């Protein structure tokens, strides 16, 4: 056994098989393999195995996806709206994402201590993760039609909805959308800064017996949420990009603008 045997290990051999070596190391391993035909044969057999695996199982990629898997987005046991979701996958993302979002929200844990407020935080966070990563369709109605957007959402929510102006904070309105909720729909406004960081404001109507609340903070996964109730609306400001202090500052601006 030569010195080389010490320097080329099993790990190098496996990495050679998988094509994961740097060009320099690959050359060293190949030189070693040339001097060790038994090992070279073994390595070649491993490579051939990988090719056979791919050849054999790639056929699965060409198979049509069974309907039951597409329908999985609406797990059948727990929810009644399965048909709606299955339909959504065919229809498209805008409507369906919202439907799924609503169902998903029902699945999450609902803290007992504050029976109403955390639900808004949870749902706002889910709506945020659904739409904030969207590149092409982040909103239904863009900021270029802001008047129309606000009028439309006000009409659907049955109250005077306003989109706060956050330009002074470096956040421009991208637009908004309507989300389904029972009872009554919800509005979502999206803002974005020059660096592409996004914030969404979730607005829903509250029952007449709701009191005003202070700002509360919640965290859902990587999404931070400040939420509060003010007269007939509940608000939740969500972002995965802003830290807690930045988001709180923004929440204060939003609150002041909506309560002149």
């Amino acid at each position, binding site marked *: 056994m030569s010195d080389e045997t010490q320097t080329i290990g099993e790990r190098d051999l496996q*990495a050679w098989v998988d094509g994961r070596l740097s060009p320099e190391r690959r050359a060293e391993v190949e030189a070693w393999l040339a001097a060790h035909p*038994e090992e070279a044969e073994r390595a070649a057999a491993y490579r051939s*195995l*990988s090719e056979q*695996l791919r050849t*054999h199982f790639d056929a699965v990629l060409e198979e049509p996806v069974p309907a039951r898997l597409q329908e*999985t987005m609406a797990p059948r046991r727990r929810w009644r709206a399965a048909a709606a979701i299955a339909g959504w996958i065919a229809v498209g993302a805008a409507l369906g994402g919202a439907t*799924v979002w609503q169902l*998903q929200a029902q699945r999450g844990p609902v803290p007992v201590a504050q029976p109403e407020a955390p639900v808004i935080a949870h749902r706002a966070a889910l709506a945020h993760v659904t739409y904030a990563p969207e590149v092409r369709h982040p909103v239904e109605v863009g900021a270029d039609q802001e008047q129309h957007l606000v009028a439309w959402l006000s009409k659907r929510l049955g109250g005077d909805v306003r989109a706060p102006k956050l330009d002074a904070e470096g956040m421009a309105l991208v637009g908004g959308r309507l989300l389904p909720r029972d009872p009554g729909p919800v509005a979502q406004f999206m803002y974005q800064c020059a660096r592409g960081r996004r914030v969404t404001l979730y607005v829903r109507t509250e029952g007449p017996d709701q009191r005003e609340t202070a700002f509360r903070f919640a965290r859902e996964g990587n999404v931070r949420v400040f939420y509060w109730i003010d007269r007939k609306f509940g608000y939740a400001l969500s972002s995965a990009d802003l830290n807690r202090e930045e988001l709180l500052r923004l929440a204060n601006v939003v609150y002041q603008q909506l309560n002149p």
Partner: protein
Amino acid sequence: MSDARSLVALIPRLRRYARALVVERGAADDLVQDTLERAWSKLHLFRHGTNLRAWLFTVMHNVHVNRVRAARPTDMLEDDMPELAQQAAQGDALVVRDLERAIAALPTAQREVLLLVALEDLSYDETARVLGIPIGTVMSRLARAREKVRASMDGKTGSKLQVVK
């Protein structure tokens, strides 16, 4: 793409891996279905900017491990194998049966590593994260899996490492 559409787009990849992992088509799709349901309910835990496919494999691994644990220690593979061998015709078909049989005969832990690396082309790092094991374990399982499959397809039990010319 939204998360939902990304998930839907990845279903064929999940099915391919599942088929290689559990062989039988219905059982493989059951695994995919459970994985999608679980992924869907845990989607808020997924970190954007990371690899959604690798994350889904993590979910599938957990689902699979739980199912294996809950199921009978020997699943249908044992029963199916003689039948598969008898069905084997000739030429390519025979090679395919041998391949499926050799993969199925691996311990689950080794099969997962081999499939994630060789079939799904995950990096060693990603594979380690998906399975929640150190990278050294990935490498040793990978080497053992490959050698077992090679020996089984060669019809040999020994390792060529010991052959001296």
